[in-house]
């Protein structure tokens, strides 16, 4: 019923969003027609969970995209165009995300959207974006089916021509983790727990498939809803299963209590998660017992990348109220890619902004062709809308903090 109440709130928020979107339609038309001298305003949307359990990650996405927009305006990246970031909170709810998507589509000033974070939210937003040819670049949703279609394991087909992402998928993240557990840690028996959501289930699936292929044993597989904090019966089962590691598919608000309770129950085995677990709050909640836990994050560690130096320096100089977190680099690059696509689309028409739908189609075409060196490395999209990068980093908690990455590399499969 909480979901339902959220949906009600979402519906209300959505209606308000639509109302403001309609309001701004006339406003932007006014700006466009009144070509007296003011710059054309092009809006870039940002959808992420800005409140709720994943807020820390969502705010990092928002401020990083904001940084890209601010820099583009300062440097006059597209002459005559002022970019404006329109951030919307999806509270990690698919239905609210869908309302937000509708609001973006309804505003003709929006040229592209960055986000969302959750794969389940991305799923619900795409049909809305796709109908309007509105580019969406996710910097955090890692479920493979978003780009490669529901049958991505056997027959890849592009699901949505308007959807792109500049982050490595779980098709790489899960197997990378399995490979590390089996070969580097030498652990051959693992228990998996997922949260029943698109991201968590997908991650565990790809992990388990690769782990079994390597000859490992999945001693126990359990699902615990995302709002669970009581894992006592799961832990009893893990204990008797003899597993030497728990692989968790989900996000840290539910992943951290799992680690805490595992250790409290006398099970001194590490928990490993995906990017959803890699957050300082995870350590704060799970306490000292979390030392030795692992989490994978798509991409190389930002701090160690020469290409990210500039981004990090600018981000810190801007004094945003929250750190860029793990999706900062990809969110910055995603916003940058849309800015470049807008530039390319405008160049095609001799610097003039084409009317309505034609403009969005041109931005979509330009996005497919975009190629630049971003904070996370080279950014270019393949025929499914994914970046070529297959780099993943394994992080470990040491002395009460996430380390700088115990191992970073590409997974070949």
């Amino acid at each position, binding site marked *: 019923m909480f979901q339902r109440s959220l949906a009600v709130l979402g519906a209300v928020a959505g209606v308000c969003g639509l109302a403001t979107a309609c309001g701004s339609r006339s406003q932007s038309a006014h700006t466009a027609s009144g070509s007296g001298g003011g710059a054309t305003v092009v809006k870039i949307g940002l959808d992420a969970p800005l409140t709720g359990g994943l807020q820390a990650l969502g705010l990092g996405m928002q401020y990083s995209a904001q940084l890209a927009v601010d820099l583009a305006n300062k440097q006059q990246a597209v002459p005559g165009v002022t970019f404006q970031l329109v951030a919307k909170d999806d509270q990690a709810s698919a239905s609210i995300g869908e309302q937000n998507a509708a609001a973006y589509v309804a505003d003709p000033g929006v040229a592209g959207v960055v986000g969302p974070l959750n794969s389940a939210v991305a799923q619900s937003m795409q049909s809305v974006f796709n109908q309007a040819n509105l580019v969406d670049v996710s910097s955090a949703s890692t479920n493979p089916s978003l780009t490669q279609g529901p049958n991505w394991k056997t027959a890849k087909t592009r699901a949505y021509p308007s959807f792109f992402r500049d982050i490595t998928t779980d098709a790489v993240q899960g197997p990378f983790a399995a490979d590390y557990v089996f070969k580097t840690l030498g652990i051959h028996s693992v228990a998996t727990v997922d949260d029943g959501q698109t991201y968590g289930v997908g991650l565990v699936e790809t992990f388990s498939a690769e782990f079994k292929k390597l000859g490992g044993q999945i001693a126990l597989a359990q699902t615990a809803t995302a709002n669970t904090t009581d894992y006592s019966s799961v832990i009893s089962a893990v204990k008797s299963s003899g597993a030497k590691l728990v692989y968790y598919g989900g996000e840290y608000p539910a992943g951290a209590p799992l680690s805490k309770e595992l250790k409290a129950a*006398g099970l001194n085995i590490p928990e490993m998660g995906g990017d959803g677990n890699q957050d300082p709050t995870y350590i704060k909640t799970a306490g000292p017992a979390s030392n030795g836990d692992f989490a994978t994050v798509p991409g190389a560690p930002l701090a160690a990348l020469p290409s990210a130096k500039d981004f990090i320096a600018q981000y810190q100089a801007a004094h945003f109220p929250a750190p860029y977190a793990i999706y900062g680099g990809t969110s910055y690059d995603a916003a940058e890619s849309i800015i470049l696509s807008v530039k390319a689309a405008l160049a095609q028409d001799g610097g003039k902004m084409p009317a309505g739908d034609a403009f969005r189609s041109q931005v979509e075409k330009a996005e497919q062709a975009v190629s630049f060196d971003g904070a996370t490395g080279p950014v270019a999209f393949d025929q499914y809308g994914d970046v070529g990068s297959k780099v993943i980093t394994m992080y470990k908690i040491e002395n009460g903090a996430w380390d700088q990455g115990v191992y970073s590399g590409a997974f070949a499969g």
Partner: protein
Amino acid sequence: MSVTVLLQLVENGLVLGAMYGLIAVGYTMVYGTIQLINFAHGEIFMLGGFGALTVYAWIPGVAHLPLFAALPLMLLGGVVVAVAAAVGAERLAYRPLRTAPRLAPLITAIGLSLALQQVVSLWYRLPGGGNAKAPVAFPSFGGKAFDLGGVLVQRADLFTVIAAAVCMAGLAWFVARTRSGRAMQATAQDPDTARLMGIDPDRMIVVAFAVGAALAAVAALTQGLRYGQISFDMGFVAGLKAFTAAVLGGIGNVRGAMLGGIVLGLAEELSSGILAHFRDTAQYGQAWADVWAFVLLILVLLLRPQGLLGERVADRA
């Protein structure tokens, strides 16, 4: 499946059930006095947790005390906040609707529940500027669990069970042995006649709200200690489960609420734990824990529509 594992599941179930029971008492007491299902009770529970955390985080020195010394202070903070919120809600939201149709206070309760969540999410602040939009860390016991022949009893588990036992004993004494307790029972059984005895029904309703809130605050403290975090939305699931426990035990019956809580906790842990233990049934384990809990509720209500302990004596009048 070894006996130790089974006993561990029973231990888990008892602790979880004790917590459900503490919250369930609030639903049942308010229902008993004014036939209102106070859907905001889960949020009263949540506020109890934040009240306790506030004492820990904001009062200088408390965080440096040993946890067992800080606990009474935190409990006091939690109880004060929860009781104030519950009594305030009764006075400002429910009392003006006392004579309105049944649906009006019910919808008010749901609205209040959403509002309280949002208030905490938007405005709660931790020292250093942290907010409560995401789950916030709650202090928890250090040290190892007690090992009873392989069955582990966490320190927080022990605290939960002792707190629940003390609260229930206190409540039983209050209801059965004190003048106010008897007056409250009388109001629940026959409000008009209770007035003829000189009992002020408004006061009894306030007492019901306050006692329920105090117990919910105790439950919130145990929840924080066990899981190491509290969140603005934790009242929803806990409230739903506790409400289920209250119905299971027979709504309106205080002992039934506690029994319902324990039965529900045991059912959840045993069903999910046993199913998760065997390879062939593992997929029906934790993922289905709520399903088994509600299957149990439906079965009990089919066999005993009044709940386990509901209405033991027929009203002849």
